């Protein structure tokens, strides 16, 4: 491609960061010194253009090393990958974790989202900024949910360098957050994942039973706890047999859409187009959700095994694990787990000696809620802006790189292990007729023991809140996160099943159960939700791009109003909300009005 580059040159450090990812440049056309041979013969074309998907890893490499992405670094990366600089700039500016303007090497991300806001995030931020003062070398950035709601308020420090260092402070105090930011290497070790599982060690857990029981960095320990029996069973069953088991189990997707997993796998497996891809959606970004993080940190090999089974069943030889950029510990553990599995022949050319080739590549997100939408996630992996695609065509037909693709989230995949070890009938016997198996709930907010809870489908909202020890003065519960809906404190008998919540006019979503007492004014919560959607809208379609702004503006106007004073704006909100729901491209815009609507209709907000 005849790309245009400016005069900016990369620094040695920036060049080294890119070369560490891509290897040294092969010719002067890619950025090496000019040689006679280069001036006689140059390769390019298809092969050069086919490396676009390394753009996001390349941006990470620079951002991790330097802390921001300069013109020279971006140009060099583009030259190496044959990507137009304007497009790369569009991609770099899409993600909240990247900066194309100079900033300090250390960034402290402080969560100001629902659970953390309720736990004092505004005061925390103010305190941190006051303590750090000007010129501290730390950039404090308020941001959306970090997936640490069980330990609210939370902060994540990232210090660029070689290697990049990270530290989590949660629950954060001003002192601890400042320490994490100024010296992430020597900050105290983060609490183990098991602490997020109050049920840890209890009998009968199917998804969480290894969390806290196994060493997450040991493959042998994983196998000593029943690991890789499901994969062996899968090879006995054959791909069609696995799909039949999964279909018969009644497993449906846990990401929120509740699509039958077996049908999705079957549809992909039967596509004649090759190759097939498996994508694990670990971009857990719904405010209030942290179950996938806990699974990945507490039992990473389970996900590796489950992905291998899913790949085997659907005819994929390459799996991508798209991991939230804000999950450094999960990244570290999964990288280790994948390397170990590869070393032991559980990934690679000949998995378990069965002649099946499968490998997994981790791709990190970079701060974009929208990338949890499956097609936006494909675009993100491919090196484009994480904008959703229009459907049809559906991913099973044209997904990642335009090929048939199965995409499942972490919890869904991990359910496949007990399905294969216990058999579909036994699994299907758990839960209700329409919602089978166990379900994880992320309980946070006004409860004694926040964390991830595993219960069989069919438990009521009250059951789950009782497990977590709901506090006095419960005012409302947010189900399903920002895209979900509020229910009243007197609706605790709602069964937490897909059909039960639907009948009650609300949603299960991703399994968020966030309890609120009277201490937080509802209009402030709603405003925070509206801000979240405004910030996270990708901007592609008009209803969502402008609608989320108009929604936030209206909620601002009525934050202190009620009754007739608010009625006009509430009518406006309803009209805009209806159009967002009906006419937006993807789930983000379609659900951006859900929580607000439920607060008005169900909780009587602004009445």
């Amino acid at each position, binding site marked *: *491609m005849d*790309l*245009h580059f*400016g005069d900016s040159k990369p620094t040695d450090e920036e060049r080294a960061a890119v070369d560490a990812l891509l290897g040294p440049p092969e010719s002067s056309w890619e950025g090496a010194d000019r040689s006679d041979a280069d001036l006689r013969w140059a390769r390019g074309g298809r092969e050069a253009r086919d490396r676009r998907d390394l753009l996001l890893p390349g941006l990470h490499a620079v951002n991790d090393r330097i802390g921001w992405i300069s*013109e020279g670094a*971006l140009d060099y990366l583009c030259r190496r990958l044959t990507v*137009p*600089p*304007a*497009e*790369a*700039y*569009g991609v770099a*500016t*899409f993600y909240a974790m990247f900066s*194309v303007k100079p900033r300090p090497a250390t960034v402290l991300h402080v969560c100001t989202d629902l659970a953390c806001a309720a736990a004092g995030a505004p005061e925390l931020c103010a305190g941190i900024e006051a303590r750090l003062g000007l010129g501290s070398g730390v950039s404090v950035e308020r941001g959306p949910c970090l997936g640490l709601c069980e330990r609210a308020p939370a902060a994540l420090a990232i210090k660029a360098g070689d290697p990049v260092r990270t530290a989590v402070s949660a629950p954060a105090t001003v002192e601890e957050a400042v320490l994490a930011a100024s010296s992430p290497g020597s900050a105290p070790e983060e609490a183990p994942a098991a602490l997020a599982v109050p049920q840890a060690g209890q009998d009968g857990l199917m998804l969480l039973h290894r969390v806290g029981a196994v060493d997450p960095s040991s493959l042998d320990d994983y196998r000593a706890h029943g690991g890789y029996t499901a994969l062996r069973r899968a090879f006995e069953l054959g791909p069609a047999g696995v799909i039949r088991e999964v279909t018969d189990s009644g497993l449906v997707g846990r990401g929120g859409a509740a699509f039958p997993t077996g049908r999705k796998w079957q549809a992909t497996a039967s596509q004649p187009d090759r190759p097939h891809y498996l994508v694990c959606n670990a971009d857990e970004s719904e405010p209030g959700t942290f179950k996938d993080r806990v699974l990945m940190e507490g039992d990473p090999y389970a996900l590796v095994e489950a992905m291998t089974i899913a790949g085997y069943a659907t005819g994929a030889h390459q799996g991508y694990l798209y991991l939230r950029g804000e999950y450094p510990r999960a990244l570290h553990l999964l990288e280790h787990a994948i390397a170990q599995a590869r070393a032991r022949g559980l990934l690679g050319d000949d998995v378990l000696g069965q002649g099946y080739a499968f490998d997994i590549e981790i791709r990190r997100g970079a701060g*974009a809620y929208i990338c949890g939408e499956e097609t936006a996630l494909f675009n993100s992996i491919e090196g484009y*802006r994480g904008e959703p695609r*229009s459907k*049809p065509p559906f991913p099973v037909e044209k997904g990642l790189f335009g090929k048939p693709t199965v995409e499942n989230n972490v919890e869904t995949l991990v359910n496949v292990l007990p399905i294969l070890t216990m058999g579909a009938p036994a699994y299907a016997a758990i839960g209700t007729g329409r919602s089978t198996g166990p379900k994880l709930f992320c309980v946070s907010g006004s409860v004694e023991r926040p964390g991830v809870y595993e219960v069989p489908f069919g438990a009521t909202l009250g059951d789950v809140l009782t497990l977590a020890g709901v506090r006095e003065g419960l005012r409302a519960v947010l189900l399903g996160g920002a895209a979900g809906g509020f229910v009243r404190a007197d609706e605790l008998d709602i069964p937490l099943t897909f059909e039960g919540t639907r009948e009650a006019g609300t949603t299960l979503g991703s399994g968020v159960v966030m309890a609120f007492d009277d201490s937080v004014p509802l209009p402030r919560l709603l405003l925070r939700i509206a801000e979240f959607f*405004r*910030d*996270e*809208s*990708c*901007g*592609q*379609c*008009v*209803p969502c*791009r*402008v*609608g*989320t*702004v*108009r929604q936030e*503006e209206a909620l601002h*106007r009525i934050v202190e109003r009620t009754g007739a004073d608010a009625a006009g704006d509430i009518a*406006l909100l309803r*009209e*805009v909300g*209806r*159009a967002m*729901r*009906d*006419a*937006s*491209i993807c789930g983000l815009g*379609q659900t951006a009005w859900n929580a607000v609507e439920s607060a008005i209709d169900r909780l009587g907000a602004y009445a």
Partner: protein
Amino acid sequence: MTVTPLGIPRRMLEFTLDGEEARVPEGSTILDACRAAGKDVPTLCEGDTLRPKNACRVCVVEVEGARTLVPACSRKAEPGMEVRTDTERARHSRKIVLELLASSVDLSTTPKVTGWLKEYEAKPDRFGPDAARLNEEPKVDNDLYVRDYDKCILCYKCVDACGDQWQNSFAISVAGRGFDARIAVEHDAPLTDSACVYCGNCIEVCPTGALSFKSEFDMRAAGTWDESAQTETTTVCAYCGVGCNLTLHVQDNEIVKVTSPHDNPVTHGNLCIKGRFGYQHVQNRD
């Protein structure tokens, strides 16, 4: 020997459009079918030379059984589908989309939009005087084009025309996110520091006048732009031997703008800098 391929013959399919049987070739969009049936569905981001982006959502229609409305411009007609183009639900979304756009973007040079605002009884003012607008100043950084992003509805057509669908120069992209997303060259630099080759193919597809020829921009500013006094004559470019068709827009015997027919087999509506702008020598008359 190989013979000239005529393409695989397209089968016809039948579906219901506003209660009436519609018969269209396989692969047609709902919009194709609407236009064939003489139905007027508003469109902004749709372009006859571009793949549908379905970003503006002003063409949404209701499809029986679908949870949400669907964009007519990109959704392919399927056998047995039941489509309604003028339901209250579809009209509501169109109205809101028009209001959202008109309240944030300068639509003063967008053709047809005044009629649609009226037809859908849209009242953009109801978001109040403080409703956020784009608030962009025109970027005049060269003598050929003006980029007035206050008029940009972010339809992506210019990006697609500059990118892999036609020009493959990739001078522009969408940068930023959400309401702050803007069309930009790398590092938000002026056009003159970018990969832009001034083919003007972005202007050719811009639906709102956000991108315009400097000649048109200046004449509009001076109040002398008068489309009713312009003639359009299609001829052949005199630079190089490719034979691009040019449509000369002439006002008072001056060429004021050059476009190309979108269905032309040579250009498909695209030109290069010389064809688009290299006409001035003809009218260096004194």
